[in-house]
């Protein structure tokens, strides 16, 4: 049980801090949330800075253009960038964390050469076309279909919960190519250019009032067969490679941020007098325990990932179950600290409270996660 860093890791941290201190003050102002072209430019600009400084694709394999850093170093990177207030991964999310790693693992040489460098250099944005209105928890039930027509797949259907669709260059797309096969066996992975004819993007407004997501409607969109990664009908396996590419680092920045929010809450409570409310104060104390433990669980998962080469087990589900709950409790406590102002959207915590409501739903509901933990870790039988 060693929580100390190696001298090499400490040096990495020190240099990163130095670099962040030097580069962050020179960043342009953050664009407003509804300025999609501005956000794209801002996020790509940040990625370019990372690239030039040697931090792009830190956790990618070296032969894919990445830095092949250990999970520990990736943890340090995420921790320090969050603490320094650096930009989020933003529009580069799918490229860096889903589509890119998938192509790195399953793509051919030409595909890797075509698609990976622009992601690392901050030149191209990817979005994700997985979920559908009728395929949420049951993702493999997706119905967007594609058939071969010469050198193209012709794709029709619709996707939902697609971030950055308005400004993406590419979409990693799951389509059904064999409707007769068992549902996991008839799916294919395609890289769809977002400027292809037949694509309609419609913003999807969430309960937070924002339009972070979109619906994507596909009407006979032609995607070259050469854009297929993996074999036809093998897309489910290809996708699972992506989804299991996490190393327990998915929420590092967020946990760091939650701990900061918790401290801010304590100071706010002290300032507005709510600190004298004993039950509320103890609740904040318990949340401190909660997020301290979640930070330690992150370190635990990262250490496990380091041993297994970056592919964790269902431990990510354990973390997500607890974290999604704790995050909601954090913002409920924030509303208590704010009192009447907890109903004010101009207080940042109110908007964050709204977005926290998605955490027990998105990327696998808590109900699905509990099934995963019960069946894959505890070995309980599937129901009939």
């Amino acid at each position, binding site marked *: 049980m060693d929580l100390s860093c190696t001298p090499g890791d400490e040096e990495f941290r020190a240099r990163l801090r130095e670099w962040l201190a030097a580069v962050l003050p020179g960043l342009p102002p953050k664009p407003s949330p509804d300025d*999609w072209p501005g956000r794209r430019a801002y996020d790509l600009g940040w990625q370019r800075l990372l690239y030039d400084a040697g931090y792009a694709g830190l956790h990618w394999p070296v032969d894919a253009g990445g830095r092949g850093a250990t999970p520990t170093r990736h943890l340090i990177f995420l921790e320090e960038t969050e603490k320094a207030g650096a930009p989020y991964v933003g529009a580069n999310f799918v490229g860096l964390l889903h589509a890119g790693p998938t192509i790195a693992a399953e793509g051919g040489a030409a595909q890797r050469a075509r698609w990976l460098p622009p992601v690392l250099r901050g030149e191209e944005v990817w979005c994700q076309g997985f979920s559908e209105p009728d395929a949420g928890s049951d993702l493999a039930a997706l119905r967007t279909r594609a058939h071969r027509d010469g050198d193209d797949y012709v794709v029709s259907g619709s996707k939902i919960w697609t971030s950055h669709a308005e400004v993406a260059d590419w979409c990693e797309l799951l389509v059904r190519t064999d409707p007769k096969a068992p549902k996991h066996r008839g799916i294919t992975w395609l890289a769809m250019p977002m400027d292809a004819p037949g694509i309609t993007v419609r913003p999807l407004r969430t309960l937070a009032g924002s339009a972070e997501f979109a619906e994507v409607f596909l009407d006979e969109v032609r995607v070259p067969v050469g854009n297929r990664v993996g074999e036809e009908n093998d897309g489910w396996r290809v996708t699972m490679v992506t989804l299991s590419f996490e190393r327990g680092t998915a929420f590092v920045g967020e946990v760091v941020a939650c701990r900061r929010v918790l401290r801010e809450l304590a100071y706010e409570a002290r300032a507005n007098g709510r600190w004298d409310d004993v039950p509320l104060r103890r609740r904040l104390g318990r949340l401190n325990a909660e997020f301290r433990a979640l930070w330690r669980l992150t370190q635990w998962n990262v250490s496990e990932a380091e041993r297994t080469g970056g592919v964790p087990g269902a431990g990510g589900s354990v973390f997500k179950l607890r974290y999604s709950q704790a995050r909601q409790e954090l913002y409920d406590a924030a509303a208590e600290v704010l*009192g*009447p102002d907890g109903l004010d959207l101009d207080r940042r915590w109110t908007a964050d409270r709204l977005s926290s*409501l998605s955490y027990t739903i*998105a990327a696998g509901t808590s109900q699905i996660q*509990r099934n995963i933990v019960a069946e894959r870790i505890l070995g309980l039988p599937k129901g009939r």
Partner: protein
Amino acid sequence: MDFRLDDDQRALRAGVRELLTRRFGRERLRAAVDPPRAAGAADGPGRPGGGAPAPVLDRVLWRELGEAGFFALRLPRARGGVGLGLAEAVLAFEEAGRALLPGPLVATHLAAGEVPGAATGECVVAAVDGTLVEWLEEADVVRGDVTGAVALRPVDPLTPLHRVDRAAPPDPVAALLTAAEQLGSAARTCALAVQHARTREQFGQPIGAFQAVKHLCSEMLVRVEVARSAVYAAAVTGDPPDIAAARLLADEAAERGARDCLQVHGGMGFTWESDVHLHLKRAWCRARRGPCAAQSEEALAEDLLAPEECPEECPGECPRECPGA
């Protein structure tokens, strides 16, 4: 003892529900949430709720409510009212909560007979409740001290809010009518969750066939039925501890019900187009009216130290506010 609704009460509830379904059904609710934009209005969906115009109170509907007796329900007939009691008011407000009917309903109802025009719905009355005032700018009359009131950008698109410095002392009837609204909302989100669970299919069956979803819905119903018993009983007795209990349980049923309803709806519940978040946000707003949960809990704790039944000659020493004292 017959705790059930009597025929008149059932008729009243059906009448209010019919009125609200006809005059404030789902289309009207959504139109109120997203009023048609003036041409060239710049409020893009990317701005989180930003620049949304303050909601406008439907004064025609308000007067219809007045004509139907919603505000004058408890006013004696001699003074032009309907002459009914708290039980009937609770049933009407439960329906209002179910329909997400907007406006300063409680404040106007309480003003009937005291503020001219309130009883008939010609006058819209807002009031300080806790440290908030709902619908201050749309109101014709505002009760309470609103000096220096500050507008919030309200989380619920149908509840404009101002914050004031000095909290108004909580009014038990207002607390109970708020509880009734929460109860109606909780019953509605339970029904919405069940409806969704019956029809939404994943993994080859309605999600309501999965125990996890089933048990979420069961617990929602349990909270509703427990809250309902408490709210109706408080309406009958008017006893302050009963009202405090009703309010605590109804607040909880509404907030947790809306959350569980959202969980059952999954991603669909997270969209603006779903009504689920409207119930959650309104429940949050109502929960901020006075008394707060801590006050109710403290009052109920004190009540435990009071004599179980007030002696015939009340010595006035116990913390219970006897109805006859």
